């Protein structure tokens, strides 16, 4: 029998679920706006934060967003993503603040162990400096609980102490949808409106809303090296070394982050619908397939969060 290939995306069952997720996220965004005096929304140009921006439009238009967009730039981002970030902020006519790890390095607050050390975890320092500079009392982020085992434990409104630290053993109780964003000066809330979304939900929402994404999310040919089960992109920052076998593969990024720690996956999916079909049948998690930094140790993410990371 010849069954037609079906796009498993837009069926009414998942549509209902997406509506529910969307409504919850809008509610959370409005709680941040209602409770916090000076919040910011972290926008990186990645798919989760692109979804956040659409949710913010739904939550606050025709008004302006009651917060600026903030990007902590490691200086090691794909130019497609940075261009997208700037274009999107401009299109929305919202204020974008960029603070860079390189400035922290110049100030001496970030010191790399070696020139090629990943700057990813050092983002925390720059983020905390930006929070202090602008006096932000809350930062909205696009983290999801399905991403990682420490994230699976985090509250939707997550309290951070004066050092930006997360204390996973002593989180505030969070009941019903009564969120508590109260902080003293210097302390901070991280709010995660899409906590309850999965990777598949994000892609289905992108399809439903027709959201534009940086091109590297879609299948393209790129030079890569196979390393420890992952594909390491060959770039100016991460050049091939002697003995490396460089292959030209068709790949896409499941997550875009720092070039030095984000790996693409082999894929032919060049449309959102094809990505949805692949995501639905993927046997590897988003981080497992893509993050070079989490492979280092069992508790890498938890450790970073305790130090102020998103």
């Amino acid at each position, binding site marked *: 029998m010849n069954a037609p290939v079906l796009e498993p995306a837009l069926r009414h069952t998942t549509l209902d679920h997406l509506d529910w997720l969307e409504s919850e996220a809008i509610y959370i965004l409005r709680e941040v706006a209602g409770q916090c005096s000076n919040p910011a929304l972290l926008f990186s140009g990645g798919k989760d934060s692109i979804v956040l921006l659409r949710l913010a439009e739904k939550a606050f238009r025709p008004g302006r967003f009651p917060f600026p967009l903030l990007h902590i730039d490691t200086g090691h981002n794909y130019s497609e993503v940075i261009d997208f970030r700037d274009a999107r902020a401009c299109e929305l006519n919202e204020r974008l603040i960029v603070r860079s790890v390189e400035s922290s390095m110049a100030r001496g607050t970030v010191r790399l162990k070696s020139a090629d050390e990943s700057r990813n975890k050092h983002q925390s320092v720059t983020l905390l400096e930006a929070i202090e500079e602008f006096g932000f009392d809350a930062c909205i982020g696009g983290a999801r609980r399905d991403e990682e085992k420490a994230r699976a*434990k985090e509250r939707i409104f997550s309290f951070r102490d004066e050092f930006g630290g997360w204390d996973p053993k002593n989180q505030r109780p969070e*009941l019903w949808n009564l969120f508590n964003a109260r902080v003293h000066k210097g302390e901070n809330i991280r709010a995660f409106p899409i*906590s309850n979304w999965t990777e598949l939900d994000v892609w289905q929402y992108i399809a439903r809303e027709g959201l534009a994404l940086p091109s590297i999310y879609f299948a393209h040919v790129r030079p890569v090296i196979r390393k420890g089960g992952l594909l390491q992109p060959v770039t100016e920052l991460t050049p091939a070394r002697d003995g490396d076998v460089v292959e030209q593969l068709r790949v896409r990024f499941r997550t875009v982050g720092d070039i030095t720690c984000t790996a693409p996956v082999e894929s032919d999916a060049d449309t959102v619908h094809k990505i949805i079909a692949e995501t639905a049948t993927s046997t590897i998690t988003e981080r497992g397939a893509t993050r070079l930094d989490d492979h280092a140790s069992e508790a890498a993410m938890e450790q970073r969060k305790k130090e102020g990371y998103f």
Partner: protein
Amino acid sequence: MSAIEHIPEFGSRVDNGLLRFLTCGSVDDGKSTLIGRLLYDTKAILADTLHAIEKTSARRGMEAVDLSLLTDGLQAEREQGITIDVAYRYFSTGRRKYIIADAPGHEQYTRNMVTAASTANLAIILIDARKGVLTQTRRHSYLAHLVGIPHLLVAVNKMDLVGYDRTVFERIRLEYLAFARQLGIKDVRFIPLSALNGDMLVDRGENLGWYKGPTLIDILESAPAAHSESDERFRFPVQYVCRPQKADDPLLHDYRGFMGRVESGEIAVGDEIVVLPSERRSRIKDIQIGGRTLPRAVAEQSVTLLLEDEIDISRGDMIVRANDKKLCPGAPASGTVSTRTALATRRIDAMLCWLGESPLDARRKYLIRQTTRDARALLDGISYRLDINSLQQVAAEGIGMNDIARVAFKLAQPLVVDRYVENRATGAFIVIDESTNNTVGAGMIL
């Protein structure tokens, strides 16, 4: 055969809706193992995750994979082999989507169990077959019942350690039923399991032949998703007021949108509304979301309401439907509303779960947050504290961590409330200690 049936995960036309459930019960009863096993047997654990917990199990010197590592993700949890805080997991079958919350069993972390229970619509209460009903089993059952979880499923676990003995299961079942009856819990089911071996979770296994009921997954797949209470009266707590004030745009010049989520009931353009507590009236001029106009808004929808008249409304006010609000003729102005309708009040009577490490201090003012409104509050008497073992109401001088008590609070500002049993969204509140800003109590209005 239709093509749709070829897609196992998302093609199924049967959709029983989202089910949010939690596992709870006493320490080490096997809650985390149960979730791990359920996800393993439904093939919901992806290869790299499984590989990671295999490695961790081996490093910790275990013979088999410890499936509790799937949810016990914190370093401190893994070191001690316990759950400290709730882990959320997401999965879907052809039938429905699930949000699973794995709650900790330790009494010290009861506040985290309450956190998980507050958003669940089904609770799996685990009991170790060797131990029977323990204090913490009772506490969690009571809390699940108190926060209004309509369906309780008692899983008698570790049946492998009692030789899969039916009489053990029956004895525990009767013991629990007696307790449940005292509480007035109606919807309770029982299932014997071995989470470790996977008996009766997804596969029936070979050891529990005497049990003829459905497997765990079958029960979950067919459980009703909704809460038993679903209030039809319109409740719209205002979260945020949108005033774009664009002088150059005549359309937006006078725009005032009241943003919030419909907590219950529904509303349509043209409906007459009342704002509480001010009791001002107007009509719905428009309902919008993301620049789109909707003819009506239903429960759980986040929308923006525009009104016909310019009236003073800010965050914390509640918009209700005019004809939902039944005024009692002849009643005094302060309490003009019948018990069936939202009431602006300066005193609340409630069941309170105290979550703070330091006891409730009767001399101090706390902050009560209910819907989007805050009010300063002072304890105005403790009717009783509940003894969780005997279920007796005992006189109490004070309230400490993990206590459940019936109390009254005096409020400095009025709150617009419903009874919790009638409306979870408008009947629930949290207590905040302003010195730490910590959430120290959870209350349900009586």
